[in-house]
């Protein structure tokens, strides 16, 4: 896979290049800030760009850089790496794009297998979210009667958590040891309970389900 990365910490940048190359990926650009990355990829887009969130242009250069990259190259995957996994940034990332995006903790992509799996799922169009964040968001809902997620069953909440991690129906079925049909039924019920009807595509509704959920956790519903 062809990749590029922007990260202002020299040590981490070197470590990431080392690991990407060990995994057999071609690193076409390796820079210290967002503006340099946009310039480097202007005429030479890659499969996935890896971005630190907290880098120049300060304070959250990764996000503004990603917006520019998505506008210029809509097919390019975006993987955000951060020292923190926070729902605030997840919502901002999903506002930039709901396909081919990922948000993971820096130290959790520290193996060739995990890094390559993350990159290929993003390149395939999935949303890849740090599992600890998806888990924290879904399993500890606020004790709020208005909370939309309170209307979901335990099993539906499991399915939504895996959806929030960007899993496909097949992946969710495998994880929960149930049939693909059962997963479809749970998802239809989640869409129904979250009020996601109409002619939006299934993919679009999946993303909206995750966003609705995240927003409810942030008290914005």
């Amino acid at each position: 896979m062809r990749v590029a990365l922007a990260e202002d910490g020299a040590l981490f940048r070197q470590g990431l290049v080392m690991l990407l190359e060990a995994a057999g990926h071609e690193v076409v650009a390796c820079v210290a800030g967002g503006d340099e990355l946009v310039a480097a990829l202007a005429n030479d887009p890659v499969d996935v760009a890896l971005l630190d969130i907290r880098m120049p242009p300060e304070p959250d250069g990764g996000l503004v850089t990603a917006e520019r990259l998505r506008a210029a190259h809509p097919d390019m995957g975006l993987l955000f790496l951060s020292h923190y996994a926070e729902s605030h940034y997840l919502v901002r990332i999903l506002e930039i794009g709901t396909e081919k995006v990922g948000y993971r903790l820096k130290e959790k992509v520290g193996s060739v297998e995990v890094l390559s799996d993350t990159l290929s799922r993003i390149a395939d169009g999935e949303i890849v979210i740090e599992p600890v964040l998806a888990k924290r968001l879904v399993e500890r809902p606020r004790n709020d009667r208005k909370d939309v997620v309170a209307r979901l069953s335990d099993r539906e909440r499991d399915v939504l958590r895996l959806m929030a991690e960007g899993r496909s129906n097949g992946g969710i079925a495998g994880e929960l040891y149930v049939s693909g049909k059962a997963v479809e039924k749970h998802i239809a019920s989640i869409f129904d309970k979250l009020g996601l009807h109409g002619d939006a595509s299934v993919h679009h509704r999946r993303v909206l389900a995750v966003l609705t959920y995240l927003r409810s956790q942030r008290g914005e519903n």
Partner: protein
Amino acid sequence: MSDASDDRRRHRERWRRRLCLERQLHDGAALRISSMALRLGALDRDAPAPGALRRDIDALQDEVAAALEELRAVAGQIYPPLLHEAGLGPALRELVTARGADVALDVTADRAEPAVEGAVYFALVDCLESSPGPLAVRIRTEDGSASEEDVVVVVIEGADPVLAPSVLDEAGPLGGTVDVTSGSITARFPCA
């Protein structure tokens, strides 16, 4: 300059120093340790599998992840980075979500200096930790007149009045005040 305003200036300076310390942790130790995770991953690729070396590398990676988790907890107690980057609303929502606390938040305050945002945030951390029941927190900015500074006003409904002194510990050094009425604490944090 009066003693009181000199104290406030020094206190504000201490908050700025906390902010710098968090930044130093993030850009220094945390980044250095994260890059070790990646280097270990590259080593793991070259290690003969399966063997003792591979198991050692896995164990070291777990240690690295645990060290980073501890650093994040420390950094959050010094000055949460999200508070500085996005303000009181996002930082408090993240806190409430992470703790699964039963708190209704209504934050309309403008961005304020690091000292005021830090003091409000940590005053509420104390209340959250010590309040078993549900809380309703409202935070707004009261615009000052030409001669007076803006004030961030925090109303905590459902808080036990015994928490008032710990809120005053945060508001007082900035020249703020705390009032207790039945069932709620109102704190005022003046901006510089």
